[in-house]
């Protein structure tokens, strides 16, 4: 069996995945208990779990695209590990490519990595390239939180609200901007803005506005809580249907092509 998918790799993968899930369970229990202590209702806590789970299912499934893409060169286990711990497509592909280049492997991610030493180099680069946050958080997070907390307390609530909304809107803008005007990348299999991305974006926006207003009008707690995941899944089903019914050159047209 290949060194990329042998028993040792599966054991290491299980260790990483087990660790990540265990940490999440421990934090979930701790926060749940504290929530009950400070008077948050079980229903509110349950809603947070259900809503976040539904919200994560779609993007979680979309990781399969990254998993399959990286598995060609690295086997299944390493992408599985990397997507479970500090993983994302841009980081993983960049790290793997630079490690392979440094090792003189010219095929990049297009062919299986046959040399265990080059594979080991990828593992080290991927690991060392993303551990800085794990080093600085235990040392500096308490200070950052204290500083930010005291800054916010000196100001009024309106600025505190506006500040968190503005930071998050900045994040949303980046992804919406890419869906409207981004260019695709052939090598990293990153899609560009096109009919599909605009259809997904606009249908999700439309359904969300409709459901929010319906929820407010009917005073439906369910709609108010689950409008977001419903809108997201509607958009995902829509693009699958569009891809089936539209001619391929129209359905997969990207405004700016791919580099």
């Amino acid at each position: 069996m290949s060194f990329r998918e042998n028993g040792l790799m599966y054991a290491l993968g299980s260790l990483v995945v087990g660790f990540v899930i265990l940490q999440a369970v421990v934090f979930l229990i701790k926060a749940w208990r504290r929530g009950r202590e400070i008077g948050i209702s079980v229903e509110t806590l349950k809603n947070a779990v259900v809503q976040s789970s539904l919200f994560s299912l779609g993007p979680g499934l979309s990781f399969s695209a990254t998993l399959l893409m990286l598995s060609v060169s690295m086997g299944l286990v390493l992408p599985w590990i990397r997507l479970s711990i500090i993983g994302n497509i841009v980081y993983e592909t960049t790290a793997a490519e630079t490690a392979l280049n440094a090792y003189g492997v010219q095929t990049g991610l297009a062919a299986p990595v046959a040399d265990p030493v080059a594979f080991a180099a990828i593992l080290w680069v991927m690991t060392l390239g993303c551990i800085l946050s794990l080093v600085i958080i235990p040392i500096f997070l308490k200070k950052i939180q204290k500083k930010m907390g005291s800054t916010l307390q000196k100001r009024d609530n309106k600025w505190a609200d506006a500040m968190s909304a503005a930071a998050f809107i900045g994040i949303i803008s980046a992804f919406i901007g890419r869906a409207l005007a981004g260019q695709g990348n052939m090598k990293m299999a990153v899609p560009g803005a096109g009919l599909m991305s605009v259809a997904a974006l606009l249908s999700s926006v439309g359904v969300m506005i409709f459901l929010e207003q319906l929820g407010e009008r009917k005073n439906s707690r369910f709609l108010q809580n689950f409008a977001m995941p419903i809108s997201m899944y509607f958009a995902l089903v829509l693009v699958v249907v569009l891809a089936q019914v539209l001619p391929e050159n129209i359905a997969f047209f990207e405004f700016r092509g791919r580099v």
Partner: protein
Amino acid sequence: MKKRSYIDSMHFTGRIWMVLALCVMISVPLFFCIGNNAWPTLFSVLAGLGPIAVIFYPTAVIEVIAFSPLLGVGGTYLSFVSGNISDLKLPCALAAMESADVRPGSEEGEVISTISIAASTIVTTTVVTVLVVVIVVLMRVFGMDDTSQVKSTISFLAPALDNALPALFGALGASYFRKHFRISVIPVAVILILLLFNGTLASGTLVPVGVVVGLLSAHIMYKKGWLKNA
């Protein structure tokens, strides 16, 4: 003995888990090298790490400063281990806080954010694990030689897999832009202008730009008294 506050206890627990996470992460390349007796040279690792560190180390610092006040203490210790923060964990946490009608920074917000990120982490990690098992089973049952055959079998789902982010951020954007229209205009406009000049800019680059522009423009509007109905 004085009882630790919830936040202090989260810092204590979080630090232990962070150190453990570091050990687990390092154990992967270390045990691979030991198990396969395959040791790359220090030079080759550093040559590969250099270009990565130049991009991702400053990004890591910016992300910790920009995201941790929104994620809360527990949320930060959790999400920086499992990753995908700006494109999944943070949106999840903020949507959950909005639904529960609590604010980031408050103790209620801290609790809801941690619960939301924990649930998201469990779901995504489980989904990826199940996908690996399904792919392995599919390959064995249908005698497929490599994963490219699996890829072509599920190609009809590709549009959904490729467009999960526009779908997710469309729903989030609709809700946020409606409530905070004034502070939304400038970050969206700046990102679009940047993309018109360079369409290849990745979301990893655009996110810090969007956050800084969003905060600066909101601050100016706040100072000018334009945020009465932001």
